[in-house]
């Protein structure tokens, strides 16, 4: 069965902290994605990666960075957390190319205080 696992369901961090959100997939997918989900805005793409050590900015990359050292793992980093980064973060993975679908993790609800 397909699985995308995010390391935490809930996180509370202080303003200015460096935050790491981890995501692991067991499907040997080339593509991995980080989205944030906010009410009324849907899912907005932060960064994606189509191969190990490769990354591309999504629509809202400011304040975030990513790391993909191994194919199965994609990390989202908040260099200095701010309150406007309080959100639900979703990781997804997919095969390369069209005619494939993305599979999602259960989400990490991050609160920055």
């Amino acid at each position, binding site marked *: 069965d397909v699985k995308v696992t995010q390391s935490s369901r809930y996180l509370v961090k202080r303003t200015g902290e460096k935050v790491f959100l981890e995501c692991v997939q067991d499907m040997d997918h080339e593509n991995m*994605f980080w989205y944030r989900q906010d009410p*009324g*805005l849907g899912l907005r793409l932060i960064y*994606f990666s189509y191969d190990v050590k490769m990354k591309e900015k*999504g629509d809202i990359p400011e304040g975030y960075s990513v790391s993909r050292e191994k194919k199965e793992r994609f990390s989202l980093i908040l260099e200095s957390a701010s309150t406007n980064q309080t959100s639900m973060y979703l990781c997804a993975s997919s095969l390369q190319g069209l*005619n494939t679908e*993305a599979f999602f993790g259960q989400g990490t609800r991050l609160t920055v205080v």
Partner: protein
Amino acid sequence: AQSVSQHNHHVILSEAASLELGCNYSYGGTVNLFWYVQYPGQHLQLLLKYFSGDPLVKGIKGFEAEFIKSKFSFNLRKPSVQWSDTAEYFCAVRRYTGGFKTIFGAGTRLFVKA
């Protein structure tokens, strides 16, 4: 700018009513189209998808969607909703822009009255 538009942010229906949720996108070229559903407290699940072929696709739980290429639309329908369909529904488009990205609409929150 939002490139995947969902027409309604909130929809309230009574059980057995028919449902249609609109979705339009603004990309040309080849795309894949999806509807995802998120039930309260649960993670995102795929409802149905369109890759090619018959523009009328059927998904789980009695949902279907029709791809109308000339209108850049992919509307979701269900003839008779149930209370258990209360959820948030997201339309999504997958396309190639230097990598294959899936772009989501803002979501439609459906509440079905028992």
